């Protein structure tokens, strides 16, 4: 499983306009996500990677790079736990 590739694929699927996400892009500012789409994204990531994103992340994570890093951290944690 390639976390970065999969995350970018999910980002593209959820966006209502064509996007080419780069690590430094902010979801709201650069990629045009609204708050509903951000939560849809989190839901899809949780399902795809079998993770649970902490509530606090929603206030702190802004960029594509931060999302990939957080998914990686959470997914590795899940693997080690199981």
């Amino acid at each position, binding site marked *: 499983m390639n976390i970065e590739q999969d995350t970018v694929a999910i980002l593209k699927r959820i966006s209502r306009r064509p996007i080419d996400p780069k690590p430094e892009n902010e979801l*709201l*500012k650069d990629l*045009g996500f*609204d*708050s*509903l789409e951000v*939560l*849809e994204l*989190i*839901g899809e990531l*949780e*399902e795809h990677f079998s993770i*649970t994103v902490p*509530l*606090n992340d*929603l*206030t*702190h994570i*802004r960029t594509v790079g931060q999302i990939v890093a957080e998914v990686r951290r959470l997914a590795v944690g899940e693997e080690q736990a199981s």
Partner: protein
Amino acid sequence: MTVAGMLAAAAASDRGGVRAVEHDGRETFRSYRAVLQEALAIAGALQASGLRAGDRVALVVPEVADFIRAFFGISAAGLVPVPLCPPAQAGDLPTFTRQSRHILAAGRANAVVTSADVAPLIDAGGLEPEPPILTIDRLQGARSLTAPMDAAADSPALLQFTSGSTAAPKGVVLTHANLQANLEAMTGPCGLAVTSADSAVSWLPLYHDMGLIGMLLSAVCTRDDITVLSPVLFLKRPTAWLEAISTHRATVSFAPTFAYELCVRRVKPSQIEALDLSSWRVAGCGAEPIRPETLDAFADRFAPAGFRASSFLPSYGLAEHSLAVTFAHGGLRLDAVDADALVRTGRAAPGANGSTRVVRLAACGRPFPDHEVRIVGGDGLPLRERHVGAIVARGPSVMRGYFDDPAATSEVLRDGWLHTGDLGYLAGGELFVCGRTKDLIVRQGRKHHPPDLEAALADVPGIRASGVAVVGIGRVGEDDEVAAVIEARASAAPDDLVDRARRRVRETSGLDLDRVIVAPPGTIPRTTSGKVKRAEIRERIKAGTLLER
């Protein structure tokens, strides 16, 4: 009866309870008896911290179960809860910090109850009074109260802020009598006629009236079970809402139109197969314009899961009326009217004729017993049926006023009538809602005040701080169109400005501007006192007489 008194009555009846489903799916069930015990412990701790009856306590708690025990704890201590949107749902951190600080100031909060995670994000420094930040896990160890404090029926039970408005945050003061009147109306024989066979499911935010009063307090009032899902869980996985209804054989659940739309778009066929929605007898719909196409699509999609279109219950309400003003029974019943006549002459003429543009509006029902609704013209006198005018309401559910704001209060409470700010007409005694008299913008059930959006735009580079106007242009039966007019500095490139303006608004309020009009200085019409003349801007945009680039 007080709000906490209602909980005590439910506890004494030994019936019912709350199942809380958190954002990560964790579930806990507590009987109303157990909720009361927790609330009384929190109430004891709040009193021990020096708070006095009538003090206002802000409540910023993202977890469902914690919110519920804290809310009833505040109430049981004779204090007034002031619910706030938690950071995860506010958009981003700066928005949360700004909104919460404004509400703490405008509500003159005497304390803040919050979670350990959220506490560091709250900025209450320098406020007068500066409220202590109390984390909920520390509100224990004091002696529990033995019963909820009593309070006069006409004393404040809840201070509900209608939005995170920065320009003019308005707190709706509801008394215990207000809440009781509205709860009895909603659950009683002319409302949902709730019995002990009913149970509810809600994903609606508890910091908003529909989730708090319409769902949670209604269930406590009728002593029925309720399952409350975190709104974050619903937005991540809309199917969680329908699964909860299916699993718990729930009979009552309300949501704004956009929630039904989200389910149509995002619940997968394989997930629908696993659902049984045949128990769902009241699928309430409110808080934003009711879009018949959306509800039709939902009914079609979920019919195989046992959903019945006759379960739809369109409703009309507003925070200043505690919550509900009218409920429509008998499913979605539509009035097809001539759209052009509606706009031009203010007449809701049946538009069955194939040659006219027809708009379909949902019947929202009749007022409850002891409550009145009228449609009035500019002179304040009642209009005849099928004439569009201002919707006004009177009765025991009408708020006491806006907190600490007599000017705003006297604007909407006139001669005992609440001026709702909405436009509508009556036909066959039933209410139809078709627009707004106020400048408020409603999108996806969220209310936005143009002055807030203007404030966000004012410091975008290239935009003159005094040269911004935002208006909502009402569209019958759907969300408002939102347009911004920007008076540009000569040096700024229009395309960049449009881009920056869109981004800023999206960033601060999560709202997408439909139209950005860049205009030369002096375009925005103002009153002599400098207030933006929004009605004139709206008209000129509609007429195409504002330069659009």
